[in-house]
């Protein structure tokens, strides 16, 4: 099996072009937007919105406080009835969690629901269990407005949940800029990115 790229080498490639309907008609190219040989990495200063979210325990929490408890944060956006990209993103988090070994106690993995009306705390718990989420990996829901505010603040909003794209956000410490990875990052790549971020 051919690896897409060697570990430790980051490509600042362009994201695959947005496929228009006309392009979809004639493309036979396997390198569609769904199969990036590239992942795009940028650094952005995001402002965490002052919203409350709900953990899968049912507890209402301030997102700002959740993300600013001193731990580095690795974040993605999911919904529990997504059967296509979220299982891969969440499985990647699960493998990342494993590969960290004892270091995992120092990280905060954050998965935020983009379908909060369906994703009740109970459904999130079942979803988290599927991926063996440890105590350092929290899933969040809340009101529709709160979820939208978070998505918009982090440039993750695509208009509706079916249009969501794979996205991982990392931040070493409160106040730092965020590393934004667009595309399907592999567990090894995520691990490398995380370690390099902490090393700075």
């Amino acid at each position, binding site marked *: 099996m051919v690896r897409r790229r060697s570990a430790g080498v980051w490509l600042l490639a362009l994201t695959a072009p947005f*496929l228009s309907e006309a392009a979809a008609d004639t493309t036979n190219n*396997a390198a569609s937007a769904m199969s990036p040989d590239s992942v795009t990495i940028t650094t952005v200063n995001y402002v965490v919105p002052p919203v409350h979210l709900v953990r899968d325990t049912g507890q209402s929490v301030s997102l700002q406080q959740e993300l600013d408890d001193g731990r580095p944060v690795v974040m993605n956006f999911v919904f529990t009835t997504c059967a296509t990209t979220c*299982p891969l993103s969440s499985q990647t988090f699960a493998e990342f969690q494993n590969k960290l070994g004892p270091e995992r106690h120092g990280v905060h993995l954050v998965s935020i629901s983009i379908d909060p009306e369906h994703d009740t705390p109970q459904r999130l718990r079942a979803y988290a269990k599927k991926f063996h989420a440890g105590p350092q990996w929290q899933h969040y829901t809340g009101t529709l407005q709160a979820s939208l505010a978070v998505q918009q603040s982090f440039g993750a909003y695509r208009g509706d949940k079916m249009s969501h*794209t*794979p996205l991982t956000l990392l931040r070493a410490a409160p106040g730092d800029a965020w590393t934004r990875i667009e595309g399907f990052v592999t567990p090894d790549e995520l691990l490398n990115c995380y370690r390099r971020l902490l090393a700075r």
Partner: protein
Amino acid sequence: MKAHTSVRALAALCALSVGATSTVSKPAQPQASAVSIGESIYRFGMLPGGKPLRGERASGVPVDGTIAACVNCHRRSGLGAAEGRGYIPPITGQFLFHPRVSSRDDSDLPYVDGARINREPFTEQTLARAIRQGIGTEGKSLSVLMPHYALDDAEMAALVEYLKHLTKTQVPGVSDSELQFATIITPDANPVKVKAMLSVLNDYFDEKNAAARAVSPRLHSYHKMMFRATRKWRLHVWELTGPATAWEAQLQARLAAEPVFAALSGIGGKNWAPVHHFCEQAGLPCLFPNVELPVVEENEFYSLYFSRGVLLEAGLIAHQLREQPQWSTVRRLVQVYRADDIGATAARMLESESRRPGLQLVARVLKAGGTDAGLVGTLKDIGPGDELVLWLRPKDLAALGNQPVKADDVWISGLMGALEHAPLPSTWRNRTHMAYPFDLPDKRRVRVDYPLGWFRVRHVPVVDLQVQADTYLACGLVSETLNHMVDTFVRDYLVERIEAMLEHRVITGYYPRLALAPGQRFASKGGYSVHFAEPTGAKIVPEGDWIVPF
């Protein structure tokens, strides 16, 4: 949820195996059982013998069992979907083995977003290679999302047979010139609401057909996609009769005699289950019927509902009860309902949602057609420490009389009680909350002006605005979705496209928002708790924000 699906998958596999062996003498039998094995792999990620399907993505991430199943991405129809910035392609035999076409205009393939048509067709060998190694017909890698599967030759052959089987060329209820729809009416549906619904449906179909041109030619050209589909819509009204045990047989007979593409809207009374189960068995989309008590089976496929109805109301009430500061001091939850109505099921749901130590759960069941005195009699001992929940229709609400009730709170069902038109006596109003599973009147006004304007122009009398607005909404949703499907009339695909497109819709009638997804069957998830602002009239006031109870 995963365990539940695995058990169902095993059961399905067993059922399929039994089905196959019953036709042992026919030469087609090996093909039938291959399709069954293929279906089990495709839909449930289950190999013969109950072993899970195993795969691995190029990034090294493993998948097995139900999450490895092809259906997750390629969908039940096999026609794929849009996802994020790209598409998951169709993989029915028709698409996989079709000769290369350089332009959609030259193709007789039905229109599907994301179809890869400008490539060499697969052969059985190259398809097996694609599934095992993720390599396309021109030697390039497939998407990183596509796993590399471990399938032996027999399993692969069975899966490919199933993919060929997914090709649908003849679809019931679809001809070049017409689309046939059924609307299903149960005998226990409220006759006024039945008439209200039918007046909307008949006028909607008439208007659609007035706009349609004569015979629609097969849509060959990409550019012709811009024209609205010109098929006429035909409505078949299936009015069921007799006891509920007889309905499935009646529906089967109807479908055999009048093959339809889908069931649109429709209306039920207290028992919709036979209709729901029939549609699931027959593979007939059942699209947004007017039912106050739907069937809750989120892992089924063909029935789509606007909301969970009175079950949602039970959830709203339970939520509000639990939020009350004095909830722990409430002694009794007393629920009142008529024996022959949907209140019984709603009351059971509320009991299970509000159960706690120290809380006495009381259900007072009024006989069907009982007297007003009977109703008033059930309330004699209500006092402080009681929460009273009335699952009652307008007639009973009006008969509550003027004696003030001394319960801590009273709750009524908006759906059963006629929403803000509930004839709740004035002395009850300052203590009564209503479960309200819709958007508030002033917030929905602009959206509801659309159907109201249409009713006015078409001279459709408005006798139940909520039912009629919902019916009009169902027609509009289905019409829009079909327009986007162009000439790809496949029943499963209709359901999948509604799932995908619904969230985009801005004009959503009585609902603030509608959204579905694979595994979601109820488009509106919440509601309000409201009370009447004044002793008389229809002005209501919300008690807090929109609540999503489940």
